C-alpha cells in the first residue's frame, strides 16, 4: 500500500518551489504590497514535502497559518494559492479567506487556520466521517509544539484514541511558539511522552529529512487505514526565519543556533546531494513562481458586492 517514495530531485523541486513562494511573498510584504501577518516556514520545508507525498489526493488535511507548504504539496494550484494570498477574486477562496485561511475541497484541504490548535478537531471530525462513510480516507492535521498546550487538542486526542479515528497528529516541533522556547511553556517538554499518556501511538522523526518524514507518514497512514487508529508524529525541525514578518527571529535565539539549523536546511542538504541539476530545477521553479505572482498581481480584487455574499449556504 502507499506511494512510491519521491526521489531527491522530486523532493527538491517541491521544497524549492515553496522557498521561492516565500521569498516572493516576503518581498511583497517588505514593499508594503502585502499587508498583515505573514508566517513563513523557511527551514521546515521537508515536513510538508515528505508528509503530503505520502497521502492520497482524497485524504484530508488541516494545518496552521504556516501551512501553505502543505496545501501546495497536497496538490493545490499554485496560481490559486498565490491569488488568495494576494487577495484576488481568482484565489482559492475568492480573496475572502486570505493567507491564514486556505481551503481546497478538491484536495481534501479543510483549512489552514488562524487559531492555534483549532484545526485538530476538524481533522478528527473528517476522520470520523471517513469511518462512517467507509471511504477510508485518512485525515492529517498539522500543528506546532506550542499548540500542544491547548485544551482542545487534548480533548480531541482522547476521542481519537477512544474512537480509533484514522487521524495523524503531525506536530512540527520547531522548538519555539512565537518567541517562547519549549522550556518556558511546557512543564514536560517531551511531547511524545505526553501524547502517549493519552494512549496515542507515537513516532518521532527528523523533520528536516523529507524521506524520513515520507516513510513515517506512509506507515502511520497505512496503520490508520487498517483501522489501528491515530498516531502522534513529532517532527523535529526549525524555522530559520522569524515567527512572522514583524519578527527578525534573532531576539530570542542565538545567532549560532539559527546558523546551525540553517546549515541543516533540507533544501541545502538535497541541493548538495543532487549536484548540478539543482540549479536547473531551481531556475525552473523560480520562473513558475514569478509567473504565478505576476499573473495574480494582474488579476482583479474582489467585486465590492462580494463582501455581502456567501454569509449563508
Amino acid at each position, binding site marked *: 500500500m502507499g506511494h512510491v517514495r519521491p526521489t531527491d530531485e522530486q523532493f527538491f523541486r517541491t521544497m524549492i518551489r515553496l522557498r521561492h513562494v516565500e521569498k516572493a511573498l516576503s518581498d511583497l510584504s517588505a514593499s508594503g504590497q502585502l*499587508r*498583515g*501577518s505573514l508566517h513563513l516556514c523557511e527551514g521546515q520545508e521537508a515536513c510538508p514535502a515528505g508528509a503530503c507525498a505520502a497521502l492520497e489526493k482524497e485524504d484530508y488535511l488541516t494545518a496552521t497559518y504556516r501551512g501553505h507548504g502543505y496545501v501546495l504539496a497536497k496538490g493545490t494550484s499554485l496560481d490559486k494559492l498565490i491569488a*488568495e494570498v494576494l*487577495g*484576488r*477574486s481568482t484565489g482559492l*477562496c475568492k*480573496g*475572502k*479567506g*486570505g*493567507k*491564514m*485561511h486556505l481551503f481546497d475541497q478538491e484536495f481534501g484541504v479543510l483549512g489552514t*487556520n*488562524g*487559531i*492555534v*490548535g483549532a484545526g485538530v478537531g476538524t481533522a478528527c471530525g473528517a476522520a470520523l466521517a471517513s469511518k462512517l462513510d467507509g471511504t477510508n480516507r485518512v485525515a492529517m492535521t498539522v500543528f506546532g509544539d*506550542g*499548540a500542544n*498546550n*491547548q*485544551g*482542545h487538542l487534548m480533548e480531541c486526542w482522547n476521542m481519537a484514541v477512544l474512537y480509533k479515528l484514522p487521524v495523524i497528529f503531525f506536530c512540527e516541533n520547531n522548538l519555539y*511558539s*512565537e*518567541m*517562547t522556547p519549549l*522550556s*518556558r*511553556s*511546557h512543564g514536560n517538554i517531551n511531547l511524545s511522552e505526553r501524547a502517549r499518556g493519552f494512549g496515542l501511538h507515537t513516532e518521532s522523526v527528523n523533520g528536516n529529512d523529507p524521506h524520513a518524514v515520507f516513510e513515517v507518514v506512509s506507515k502511520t497512514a497505512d496503520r490508520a487505514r487498517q483501522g489501528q487508529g491515530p498516531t502522534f508524529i513529532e517532527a523535529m525541525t526549525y524555522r530559520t526565519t522569524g515567527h512572522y514578518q514583524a519578527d527578525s527571529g534573532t*531576539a*530570542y535565539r542565538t545567532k549560532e543556533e539559527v546558523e546551525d539549523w540553517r546549515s541543516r536546511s533540507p533544501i541545502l542538504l538535497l541541493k548538495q546531494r543532487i549536484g548540478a541539476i539543482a540549479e536547473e530545477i531551481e531556475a525552473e521553479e523560480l520562473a513558475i513562481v514569478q509567473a504565478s505572482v505576476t499573473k495574480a498581481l494582474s488579476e482583479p*480584487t*474582489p467585486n*465590492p458586492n*462580494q*463582501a*455581502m455574499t456567501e*454569509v449563508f449556504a
Partner: protein
Amino acid sequence: MSLEMTYREALAKSIEEEMQKNPEVFIMGEDIGRYQGTFKVTRGFVEKFGSRSANYNYRILDTPITECGFTGIGIGAAMAGLRPIVEFMTMSFSILALDQIINHAAKVHYMTNGEVKCPIVFRGPGGAAKQLSAQHSHSMDGWYAHVPGLKVLCPATVADAYGMMKSAIADDNPVIFYENPGLYTVKGEIPDDINYTVPIGKAQILREGKDISLVGYSRMTQVHLAAAELLAKDGIDCEVVDVRSLLPLDTETIYNSVRKTHRAVVTYEDWRSGGFGAEIVSRIQEDCFDDLDAPVVRVGGLNVPMPYARNLELLCIPSEEDVVAAVHKIR
C-alpha cells in the same frame, strides 16, 4: 503639568505604576515578558518586575498558548485576593476563554451574594487591524457588554487609556478593557499625576455642537472627531459624545446631548446587527422619543465575517465617510 505620549505608552505607564504601588497587581499573558508583548504594551516590564534570565516571573507571567487555562488561573488568583491583569494577544483569542469569563468571573460575586470578589482586568487589542481576516478581527465589546457582572471599558483617548486603566485595576469586579489596535499609536496628553483616575461609567463630550450628537466609543470616537471636522465645513455643528464605558453605561450624558441636538448617529465597529450601538440607540428611542426630530441612525460593521481582501475589509469597517453619509440622511 502634562505629559505627551502614545495610547500604548499611556497604558504601559498606568499598569506599571499600579504594579509598583500594589504588590497584589500582576500581569499574565502570551509572550508579554521577555518578548514584551506582541503590541509592546509591556515593554521593559520583565526587567522591572522580574528577571530576563528566569524561566518565569510571577508578576510578569508568560503563559503557554492556553487561553482557557490561563484565564481560569487568573480568575482563581483574583478570587484568592490578588488583582491580575490578563492580556489577550488579541481579543479574538478571548473567545477560547469565554466560559471562564462569562460563567465564572462574571457570576461569582452574584452567586455568592457578594461573599467572593473577582477583581481582574482582561485587556488586549480588539477590532480589525491590517488584513488579519475573519478569525483575528473580532471586536468582542458588544459580546461582553451583554454580560451582567462584567464592566466593559473602551477608551478612545490617551488620557482615558491612562486613567481608566487605573480605575479598572482598582475596581473589585472583572473588567474588560478593550484597546482598538488602531489607537496604539495615537498621541495625546496625560496629567503628570500617578494618582490620576477616570471614573468608570462616565461618558464625556469631546466636542460641543448643537446640530447632531455623534455617539461612539473606542476608535470610532476618533472617527467621529474627524467626521465632525468634515461636517463643520458643510455647516453642520456636531457634538461628539464619547461613551467610554459600555457597562455601566452613562445614559445621562448621552441623553443630555440628544435633548440638546435632537438628532443622533451611533457608530460602532462591531457587527451592526445586535452590536452594542444597537443598545444605545434603543435606549435613546425609549427615553428621549419626544426630544428627537429624526430617527436615530446606526453606523456599524457589515454583518459578515471579516473578509481578507483589503478593498472588502475597508467596506466592513465604519469610516468618516459612512458617518458623514449617515448624518446627511437625517439632517
